[in-house]
């Protein structure tokens, strides 16, 4: 018996070691000749982008007979953490989705890891298909977005809007507001009836985005250039930043935002809206698909009333690593994703296409989502996100507006607290 067990253990050990070693040899490499396109993205299969890009891959295969597409769906976390290491090796993809922004695509472009797409962009007309504020996140100069060469091509856009529960609006006799005054009047109606009008999350991005929306109601493109692209110094003690913080505090004081939302996560805010507890939330188009599939009551969205500038940007980018072995195929694929058919697919599945034609969108709600985006885009109104300018600013904003929600600090103190890291960060970036 004991002998038998020993034999079994030895056999298991040998087997494991052998398979372990043998299994590692494989992973056949394709040597340069471009009949394989290795493509990675991290959108889930049933999301608007996932569906549209699946179709794009099919079209690509039809048009490139004999080319094998090796598609792998990656974890967001994995690309976020390791993109630099992955594409600096020979094991990386030929084309991949990557996050827009200075800390991600900007950084890799300045390290020479991404292919310059400028020539293709002009040749294939991508520069005309995308509006100027969408191009901002596609072009990087020494790692700073806004100008310079093309290093990525966005396929979809995103923007912050107001989602509202139509049934609660009808029940309380509130109509869709189109100006800031109507908006606050609507919220007063809810407060008078004991309903907190705005769902909020103080522990994550929503608070900072609401503040930014409020500041943007007094802002123009020049402010956004100053704040996001460091064209000129930003005075945090003057409008529009001051207005944003003070109005935010005022809204908390008036009960538009629940004081106990300081510790809530974005997920809590989303589920509060889905379960019909919050009449409105101010948040981004990334919720749209989920709301569409999970909400059982009647709901819709409208643009943040009165603003011409809105938090939002292009979505993530298609980038072509410098190590790509099939660059021309990658360019072809990007081109396919910008075609009307694919753009319409994104729109029809609850995404925001970058060059979507509302006429091709069948669902009324989807059409409004895209029309609103096109409105913002055509008036050059994408103002990006408040935490973008300097590294680590996200946490600064979260803690700042958390203390406004629970009223432990005055707007003045919060402005001081968020001004210094911003100024230090910008000084740091300018020194490089």
């Amino acid at each position, binding site marked *: 018996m004991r002998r038998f067990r020993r034999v079994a253990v030895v056999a298991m050990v040998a087997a*494991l070691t052998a398979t*372990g070693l043998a299994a590692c040899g494989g992973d056949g490499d394709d040597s340069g000749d471009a009949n394989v396109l290795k493509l990675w993205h991290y959108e889930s299969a049933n999301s608007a982008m996932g569906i549209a890009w699946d179709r794009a891959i099919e079209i690509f295969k039809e048009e490139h007979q004999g080319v094998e597409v090796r598609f792998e769906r990656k974890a967001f976390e994995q690309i976020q953490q390791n993109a630099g290491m992955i594409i600096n090796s020979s*094991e990386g993809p030929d084309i991949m989705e990557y996050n827009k922004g200075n800390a991600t695509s900007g950084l890799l472009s300045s390290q020479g890891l991404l292919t310059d797409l400028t020539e293709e962009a002009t040749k294939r007309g991508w520069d005309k298909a995308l509006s100027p504020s969408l191009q901002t996140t596609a072009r990087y100069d020494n790692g700073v977005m806004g100008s310079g060469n093309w290093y990525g091509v966005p396929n979809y856009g995103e923007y912050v809007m107001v989602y509202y529960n139509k049934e609660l609006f009808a029940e309380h006799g509130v109509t869709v507001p189109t100006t800031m005054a109507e908006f606050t009047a609507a919220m007063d109606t809810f407060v008078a009836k004991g309903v907190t009008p705005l769902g909020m999350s103080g522990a994550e991005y929503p608070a900072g985005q609401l503040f930014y929306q409020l500041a943007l109601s007094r802002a123009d493109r020049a402010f956004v250039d100053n704040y996001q692209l460091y064209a000129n110094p930003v005075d945090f003690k003057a409008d529009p930043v001051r207005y944003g913080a003070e109005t935010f505090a005022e809204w908390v004081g008036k009960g538009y935002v629940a004081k106990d939302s300081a510790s809530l996560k974005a997920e809590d805010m989303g589920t509060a809206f*889905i379960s019909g507890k919050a009449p409105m939330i101010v948040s981004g188009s990334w919720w749209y698909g*989920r709301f569409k599939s999970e909400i059982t009551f009647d709901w819709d969205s409208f643009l943040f009333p009165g603003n011409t500038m809105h938090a939002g940007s292009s979505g993530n980018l298609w980038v072509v690593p410098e190590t790509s072995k099939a660059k021309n195929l990658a360019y072809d694929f990007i081109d396919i994703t910008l075609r009307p058919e694919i753009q319409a697919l994104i729109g029809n599945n609850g995404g925001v296409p970058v060059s979507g034609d509302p006429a091709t969108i069948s669902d009324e709600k989807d059409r409004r989502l895209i029309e609103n985006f096109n409105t913002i885009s055509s008036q050059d109104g994408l103002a990006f996100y408040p935490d973008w300018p300097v590294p680590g600013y996200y946490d600064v904003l979260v803690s700042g507006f958390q203390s406004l929600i629970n009223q432990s600090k005055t707007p003045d103190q919060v402005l001081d607290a968020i001004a210094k890291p911003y100024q230090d960060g910008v000084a740091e970036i300018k020194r490089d």
Partner: protein
Amino acid sequence: MAVTLTTRPRVTRRAGDRHRRGVGRWIVLVVVGVAALAMLVPFAFMLLNAFKSPGDYSTNGPLSWPAEFYTTGLRTYWEQVDFPVKLWNSVVISGSVAVLAVVVSLLSAYALGIGRVRGRLWIIGLFLLANMLPQEALIYPLYHFAKEAGLYNTRLAVIIIFTVIQAAFGTYLLASVLGTFPRALLEAAALDGAGRWRILWRVVLPNIRPTISVLLVFFFIWTWNEFLIPLVMLIDNQTQTIPVALASLQGDRLMDAPTTNAGALISLLPAILFFLIFQRTLARGITAGADK
């Protein structure tokens, strides 16, 4: 022939009845029971939410009873990440590491604990650094080495790395166990003409086998749960392990709690099974030497 130290357990439970009386015993039982229940609460939530549809979860929250028995989440996860491949990868990596690390630990601990190498305290201290250093600090050097050696994106890279890391701990533990190994036994074996190699396999190994089994189980489970190094080293879907696959359910700004729960449930089962199978060994190992 194996020389075994463990004598048959002598009957020492003469005053056994003393323990069967009194409230103290019941209080302990209740406290342990409550603690066990508290440990089970997260698992209960996972189980509850694994069978809930996303809409149900968002509307009624994580505490509610599922409106329907929803298994799409489980199926989505299984298909989306190609679970059998990940399971195989995890088993190969954890299994190989557990076995190799135990062998390496045994050999180096034999040298350090029985061979009494000069300055062994420092050597063990150095080994332990491998465990004490945060993996984030190791990751870039490891990446460059792996790339230079052509092992980046292979399971072998992860196996080698974890064999070293786990063996560091194993060496530390086994060296101190072997430090107390009865000299008389070794001398007797040497007198009988056994060489060093023979002593290791015929005298030392059989006596510390319980400890080694425990190490094997620990190494397997620790490696199974490792996330960062596999995440960095294994970039192909074909080479990834289960924890990395689980992470692929997490989006940028969105999360899908029910599917994540379903994934966690499926991913947990192999580790639980492994533990149940080896549980006997584990219990034996912990009490080994208790009656010395």
